[in-house]
């Protein structure tokens, strides 16, 4: 990985962090409604993985999807406007935080039914294979989704047909408020791939470069026609499940163990230590992305809302 790439990944993680902090603040002000699931702490997953695919490759994700959208090429303005429910949003204000779509960037949805996106991502890979295209689908889901039937149905089909899909599990250790260890007979998610004769790996989800390398390998396998890979990235969400979560189910001591493993701090230290960037350069990046986010919030505030006519028009395609 060259220096420019590493700096880009740092910038993207910093952008997500600032974006999410701003989103949380705007939620508190009542500008964002519904459920809001922040990605703070998990930035290395979206950034490391999505940098390993090409623009024309597909991404399917879940309801904690702002980070994926930002890395896949959606403008911070359009993502923030979606959170505000504005017509300038990526989904024209019709989807909201949990349903970010951007066809142009091949972001085929955030889905709010746990596990619901997994077979859709598998299906995209089926469509790719059927049309003999040199593309892959990067399919994000969380640890909670692996106990859903659709996960198993999809792994089986994908491996059986050697589909070009990467099943990327963001294991943040908690399915909403229930620890993985309390809900899974086999909490090591990567092991589940074995049952389907699928390649799998576990990776440090706080290390963006490790995530990138693991995903590059999986994507190469998929493009070669050698089938899917399950990647389990161990990560941690620093905030609650959603803004409504008081986080009573885990200890402050546990959180304190994870705090120093902040993926952005780790990357910053590494870049400086290795002489790849200076403190000033990185501080400048932080300032830049802060301005980008401020602009995004301003844009969202000023944008118009969709109309009642839009609501009725957008039920059926004509």
């Amino acid at each position: 990985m060259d220096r420019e790439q590493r700096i880009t990944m740092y910038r993207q993680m910093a952008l997500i962090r600032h974006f999410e902090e701003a989103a949380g603040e705007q939620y508190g002000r009542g500008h964002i409604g519904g459920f809001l699931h922040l990605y703070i702490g998990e930035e290395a997953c979206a950034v490391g993985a999505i940098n390993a695919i090409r623009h024309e490759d597909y991404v399917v994700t879940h309801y904690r999807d702002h980070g994926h959208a930002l890395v896949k090429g959606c403008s911070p303005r359009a993502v923030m406007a979606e959170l505000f429910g504005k017509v300038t949003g990526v989904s024209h204000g019709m989807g909201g935080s949990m349903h970010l779509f951007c066809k142009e960037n091949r972001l085929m949805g955030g889905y709010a039914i746990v596990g619901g996106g997994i077979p859709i991502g598998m299906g995209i890979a089926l469509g790719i294979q059927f049309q003999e295209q040199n593309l892959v689908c990067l399919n994000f889901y969380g640890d909670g989704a692996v106990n859903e039937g659709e996960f198993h149905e999809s792994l089986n089909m994908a491996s059986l047909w050697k589909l070009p899909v990467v099943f990327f599990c963001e294991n943040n250790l908690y399915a909403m408020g229930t620890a993985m260890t309390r809900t899974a007979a086999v909490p090591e998610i990567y092991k589940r791939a074995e049952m389907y004769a699928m390649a799998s790996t576990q990776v440090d989800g706080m290390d963006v470069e490790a995530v990138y390398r693991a995903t590059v390998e999986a994507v190469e396998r998929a493009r070669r026609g050698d089938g899917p890979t399950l990647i389990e990235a161990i990560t941690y969400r620093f905030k609650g499940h959603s803004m409504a979560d008081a986080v009573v189910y885990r200890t402050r001591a546990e959180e304190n163990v994870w705090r120093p493993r902040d993926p952005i701090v780790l990357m910053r230290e590494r870049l400086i230590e290795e002489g790849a960037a200076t403190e000033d350069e990185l501080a400048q990046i932080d300032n830049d992305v802060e301005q980008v986010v401020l602009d995004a919030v301003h844009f969202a505030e000023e944008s118009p809302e969709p109309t009642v006519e839009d609501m009725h028009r957008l039920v059926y395609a004509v």
Partner: protein
Amino acid sequence: MPIISYREAIRQGLREMLRDPKVFLMGEDIGAYGGAFAVTKGFLAEYGEKRIKDTPIAEAAIVAGGIGAVMAGARPVVEMMTINFTLLAFDAIVNHAAKIYAMSGGQVNIPLIMRTVTGSGNQLGAQHSQNIEGHYAMVPGLKVVAPATPADAKGLLLAAYDDKNPVFIAEHFALYNTKGEVPEEPVRVPLGVAAVRREGKDITLLAYSRMVQTCLKAADLLAERGITAEVIDLRSLRPLDYETMCASIGKTRRAIMVEETGIGTSIGGDIIATLQEMVFDDLVAPIRWVAGAPTPMPYNRNLERAAIPNAEAIAIAAGEMLGGEQRKVA
């Protein structure tokens, strides 16, 4: 015009679609077995494994996989062996296929064709004998059709292929061997347009799928008593063609909604409620509802017969609505 079976008509429709290289069929036992109802018999040998895809028994992933394949630009036709099994894909159909167009702000439409087989009877027991197409007809974003004739089975399928939205097609197991005139050409039957199957002036019978045939029998019984019944085949359950229904009721001033499924378990009540508002001034009597027993389908032959409406029950209800001598009908 050639006379062919409902099954053969569907086969013709599928063949027409398979001329498009983006189309493939996917479902349980559609290939090597030839389809549980022999609709795709011989297709595997003819089109090969790539186009005729046998799947694991995994309805959720079959439908959601179809959604994904559509997103990638292919045109899959997914088949769920029977409507009973579609419930395992209810999330994929209702939460995903139906909502993605709206949720994406109109960016991503899902022209997915979902074929399945509905129907009550044949002593198949509670889990293989029900008509739940009405559940799907309640879902904005889906289109739902239930063909009653061979020509419609082909024509609605081809219209679904032209459509940009997810279309749920409920074929009826008892109709596969029925025959009728079907144009050889790929003639489309537009979605959302009902058909008048028999003209009459005294009462309108509203039905879909197999109950259209049952209503035609009831109309024969009524004709013996000098009552002429108009039989409307809804064909599409979503969207519904109220224009045709209202025009007929405007003429007959009486209507019966007929459904194969248990009363209150499908869209009949909704149709009646809507019609009462639209045609209240034309009506000389409240719209009646003849449907099955609202129970899980019993296995016992006699009980099963009691649970599914028949032509006699429809004729009796019609006779009651027309009063006087006509009460003796059937």
